C-alpha cells in the first residue's frame, strides 16, 4: 500500500503535458555517477497484514494498562478523559501544520493561545510559549536564555534535578557555557549552604526541580533569594500535576518555569513525544525560544490570533535566533489544554490531592514492611524514595511477573543508592490495587 493515486493513464497525460517522453528524463540533473539506491527492506504489507504485525509487536510489551503501574521518574501514568483523545485525533488539528496562514489556522492559533493561558494559570508566570520538545530540552533552552539574558557564563544546577535533564543541559551547553556546577543532595534536597558558596556574580541561573527527582521539596525560598541577590535567574522545573496543590512557582520567585507536560493528557508512549513546558516573566518575553501566539484584530476589527514576535525565530533571524526550534509539540499542547479544560479549577485540585493522598497511603503501607524504610523523610507529592532490603532490579523482575511495574531503581542514576527504589502513586490505582501491590512487594522481598 503506497497511498499514491497515480494511474498509468495519469502518468501518460502528465508526462505529455510536462513535455518529456519518460519519467527518467525528469532526473537528468542527477549525475549518473551516483549509484542507484539499493535497499534491503522487508516486503510491502497490506493494511490487514500490517495491523496483525503491529498487534503482535504491541502484545510483547508490558504496559501501564496490562500491569499495575507504580513507576514514574519523569513519565507519569494518569487517567486521560476520552475527550482528550477524541479531539486530538481530529484531522483538522492533527493534519495541519504550523499556522503560517492565520486566516486558515484560527483553530490551532486560538487553542495555542488557550494553552499559553492555562500554563500561566498553573505556574503563576506572565507568559508562556506554544511548546518545546520535552522537559529536558525545555530546561536546556531555559539555560541558553539565562546565559544570553544575564551575559554570564555559569550555571548552578541542583543535583536533585532529573539526571537526564542535567545531561541534556550539558550536551546542549558544553560548547557555549562556562562552568556547570551541580549542588549535592543532603537528605534528598540540596544544601543551601553550598548554594550560597557557589552562586556568585558569574552565575547565569540557578536550577531546581520541585518535587525533585527523589520526590522531595526543595528549599526554594532560600535558593530564589540567593539567585536574585546575585543577579542570577531562578529556573524551576515542575511536575505540572503537582501544581494542583503545590504553590505556583511564580509565588516563590521563579523567573522561568519549565517542566515535562506529558502528565497533562499525553500517553506514556515509551518516552515521547512529550511536551516541553516553558513559561517565564514578562521581562524575558523577547528572548523566549519557540512559537508564541498572540491575540490581535483583523482588517474588519474582528478578534483573531497570529504567530507573533517571530523576529526571535530561526526562519527570520537565522543564526541570531533565540533557538533553532521549528517543529514543536503542538498536539501535546492541545491535549494539555483539553485535559485541563476537562478537569477545571476544582477538578485539577482534586486530582492533585488524590495523588498526594494515595501516595501517602502507599508510603505508609510499604514502610511497614520488614526491612523497608524511607530513604528520605516526607513531605512528598506523588513520588517517594525507599530503601529496600533487596536488589530493586531483582524486585522489579519479580513484580513484573506478578503483574506490576515496580518503582524506579535509583542505582541506575547513582551507584551509591543501590537499595533505593523510587515509587510513584498517581490517582489511577485503587486502594485494592495498592494493597495488592504492597502484598506483592512483601512476597518479593522475602
Amino acid at each position, binding site marked *: 500500500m503506497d497511498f499514491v493515486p497515480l494511474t498509468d493513464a495519469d502518468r501518460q497525460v502528465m508526462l505529455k503535458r510536462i513535455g518529456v517522453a519518460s519519467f527518467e528524463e525528469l532526473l537528468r540533473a542527477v549525475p549518473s555517477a551516483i549509484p542507484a539506491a539499493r535497499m534491503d527492506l522487508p516486503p510491502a504489507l497490506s493494511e490487514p497484514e500490517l495491523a496483525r504485525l503491529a498487534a503482535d509487536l504491541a502484545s510483547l510489551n508490558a504496559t501501564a494498562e496490562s500491569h499495575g503501574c507504580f513507576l514514574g521518574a519523569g513519565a507519569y501514568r494518569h487517567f486521560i478523559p476520552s475527550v482528550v483523545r477524541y479531539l486530538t485525533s481530529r484531522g483538522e488539528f492533527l493534519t495541519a501544520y504550523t499556522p503560517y496562514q492565520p486566516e486558515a489556522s484560527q483553530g490551532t492559533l486560538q487553542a495555542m493561545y488557550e494553552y499559553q493561558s492555562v500554563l500561566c494559570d498553573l505556574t503563576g508566570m506572565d507568559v508562556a510559549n506554544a511548546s518545546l520538545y520535552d522537559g529536558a530540552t525545555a530546561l536546556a533552552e531555559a539555560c541558553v536564555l539565562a546565559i544570553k539574558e544575564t551575559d554570564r557564563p555559569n550555571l548552578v544546577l541542583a543535583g536533585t534535578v532529573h539526571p537526564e535533564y542535567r545531561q541534556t543541559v550539558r550536551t546542549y551547553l558544553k560548547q557555549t557555557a562556562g562552568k556547570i556546577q551541580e549542588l549535592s543532595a543532603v537528605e534528598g534536597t540540596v544544601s543551601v549552604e553550598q548554594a550560597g558558596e557557589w552562586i556568585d556574580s558569574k552565575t547565569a541561573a540557578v536550577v531546581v526541580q520541585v518535587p525533585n527527582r527523589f520526590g522531595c521539596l526543595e528549599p526554594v525560598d532560600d535558593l530564589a533569594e540567593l539567585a536574585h541577590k546575585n543577579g542570577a535567574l531562578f529556573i524551576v522545573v515542575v511536575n505540572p500535576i503537582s501544581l494542583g*496543590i503545590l504553590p505556583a512557582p511564580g509565588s516563590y520567585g521563579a523567573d522561568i518555569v519549565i517542566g515535562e507536560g506529558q502528565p497533562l493528557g499525553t500517553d506514556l508512549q515509551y518516552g515521547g513525544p512529550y511536551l516541553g513546558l516553558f513559561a517565564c516573566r514578562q521581562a524575558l518575553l523577547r528572548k523566549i525560544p519557540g512559537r508564541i501566539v498572540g491575540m490581535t484584530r483583523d482588517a474588519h476589527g474582528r478578534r483573531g490570533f497570529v504567530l507573533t514576535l517571530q523576529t526571535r525565530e530561526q526562519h527570520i533571524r537565522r543564526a541570531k535566533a533565540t533557538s533553532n526550534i521549528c517543529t514543536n509539540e503542538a498536539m501535546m499542547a492541545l491535549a494539555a489544554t483539553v485535559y485541563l479544560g476537562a478537569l477545571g479549577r476544582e477538578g485539577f485540585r482534586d486530582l492533585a490531592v488524590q495523588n498526594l493522598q494515595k501516595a501517602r497511603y502507599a508510603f505508609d503501607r510499604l514502610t511497614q514492611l520488614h526491612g523497608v524504610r524511607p530513604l528520605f523523610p516526607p513531605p512528598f507529592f506523588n513520588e517517594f524514595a525507599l530503601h529496600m532490603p533487596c536488589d530493586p532490579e531483582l524486585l522489579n523482575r519479580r513484580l513484573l511477573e506478578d503483574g506490576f511495574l515496580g518503582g524506579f531503581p535509583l542505582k541506575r542514576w547513582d551507584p551509591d543508592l543501590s537499595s533505593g527504589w523510587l515509587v510513584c502513586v498517581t490517582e489511577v490505582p485503587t486502594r485494592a490495587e495498592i494493597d495488592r501491590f504492597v502484598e506483592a512487594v512483601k512476597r518479593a522481598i522475602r
Partner: protein
Amino acid sequence: MTPPPSAMREHPPASPLPKTPHSPGRLLEPLLRELGEPGRRGFVLPALDVPERAVEELLPPAWIRKDPAPLPEVSERDLVKHFMRLAHLNFSVETNFYPLGSCTMKYNPRVNEEIAALPGFAQIHPHTPEQGAQGTLRLLFELDQMLQQILGMDAVTLQPAAGAHGELTALLMAKAFHESRGHPRHKVVVPDSAHGTNPASASLSGFEVVEVRSNARGRISLSALASAVDEDTAVFMMTNPNTLGLFEPEVLEIASWVHEKGALMYLDGANMNALLGRVRPGDMGFDMVHVNVHKTFSIPHGSGGPGGGPVGVKASLKPFLPAPQVEVRDGLYRLAPAGSLSIGRVRSFYGNVGALVRAYAYIRALGAPGLRRVSEGAILNANYLKALLKDVFPIPVEEACMHEFIATAKALKQTQGIKAMDIAKRLLDYGFYAPTICFPLIVEEALMIEPSETESRQTLEQFADALRKIAQEARENPERVRTAPHRMPVSRLDEVQAAREPNLRW
C-alpha cells in the same frame, strides 16, 4: 474555475457574546475561559478510596497552594463543542490541498494512528524493564536498520524530536569528531538558500556560521564553496534537492572538495521525499543526514508537531551518537549505554517513539518499491503542476524540478502591486492552503509549491485553475486580491499590533 461549494466553506456566524477586555471586536468562538461558569466540570474522578488525611498533615503550610489555579470551568459538552468549532476553523491535509513547500504535507495514513494508539505502544512506560519492552525495542531496532538502508548510512540515532533537533545533534557530533582527532574546528558553512534552522542550529551548537551565496538556481558553485570552506570548517550543510527543488548536479565534486579540507558533509534531509529509493545520501558523499519523519514518512504534522528527526551517520561518526542506542544481545533487545565518545543525551528518554511507531508502519506498508513510487509521484506531481502554471506565474528556473518548485509573483508586483502574500491569501478563498511564501530568500516574491505524491491529478488541475483565476483577478480587479481573503472567518490580522502590544494569554 469556480470551485465546488464544498471547497468554499462558509463559516458559522460569530457568536453573539458580550465583549470582554480582551475582545476588541466580534468573536468567532469565545475563549474557553469565557465559556466557563464556577462549579462546572468536564470530568470527575472517582471518590478517593484511601483513608483521607488533612492536607495540612501531608504538606507544610508553605507548600499548600492558597488559591487553586484559575482554570476554565466547563461542561464536557461545551468543551467538545468549543474544540470542534475551533477544529472547523482550520485547513488541514485531511480537508484541503496543502501545498506548503518544504513541508511535504502528504496524506497521513489513518491505520498508523490506530497502530500508535494500541495500548501496547501507547501505554508503555519508558522505564519498563527491558524484558517487558521487547515489542517497542524490536520496532525501534528494525526502524534503525531500515533507515540505514534508506539513507545509505552505517548507523542511526532515533532520538531527535524534530529536524532542527537532528541538525543540532549532528553538529554536536561533528564538533566532538573533530575534537577527538586533535583538530577542533569552529566554522559551519551554510548556503544562503538553506532553511533557517541550519544557521540557527550551527549557532546553538557553538559554531561560527559562514554563509555562502548560491546562484540564481539556488545552487552552490564549487568556486563559491572553495573560498568558504577551509581547514577550520567542521561541516558543510547542504540541502539536496535544494530549497528551489533542484538537484545539485555537482554534489559529488562538492563532497570531494569538502572532504579534502577535512570537513564533513551534512545533508538537511527535509527534501528526502524526492530521493526515496532513487539515490541515497550515503552514496553521494554525505557523512551525516537527518530525515523528518513528519515529512518523508507520513507522520501527521499536528498543527506544528510532534515530528521526529532521526540522524544517520557514516561509521566514522558512530562512536559519537547520543545515548542510548537499541542493540540486540543474547536474543534480547536492549538499551545500550553511552560509549566514552558519545555526545551524551539530547533529550529525555529515547526519542519521539509514538511518531517512530507511525514511521515504522509506513515503511513496512510501502516496502522498497512503494518508497520508489513515492518519489516518482512527488516528482511527477511537482513537474506537472509546474507545467500547468508556467504561463501563469514565471518559474525562475526553467528545468525539471524534483519534488517542489518555485514560482514568482514578481511581475504582478511590478505591474499591479500584487505580492506573493496576496496570492496566498486569495488561494484560501478558493479552499486551498497557501504555498510557502517569501522563501527561499534568494527569489523575489517566491511561491514555493510542493504538492506531494498523495494528491491526484485532478486536485493539481483545480489548484492550477484557481491560481490562473487569481492571476486574472489581479489584473482585472487587483483590489479584490489585495484585500483577500474574503470568505475566511478573519482576514489580514494585524501582526504589527500583535507584536507591539503582545496579548499572549487571558
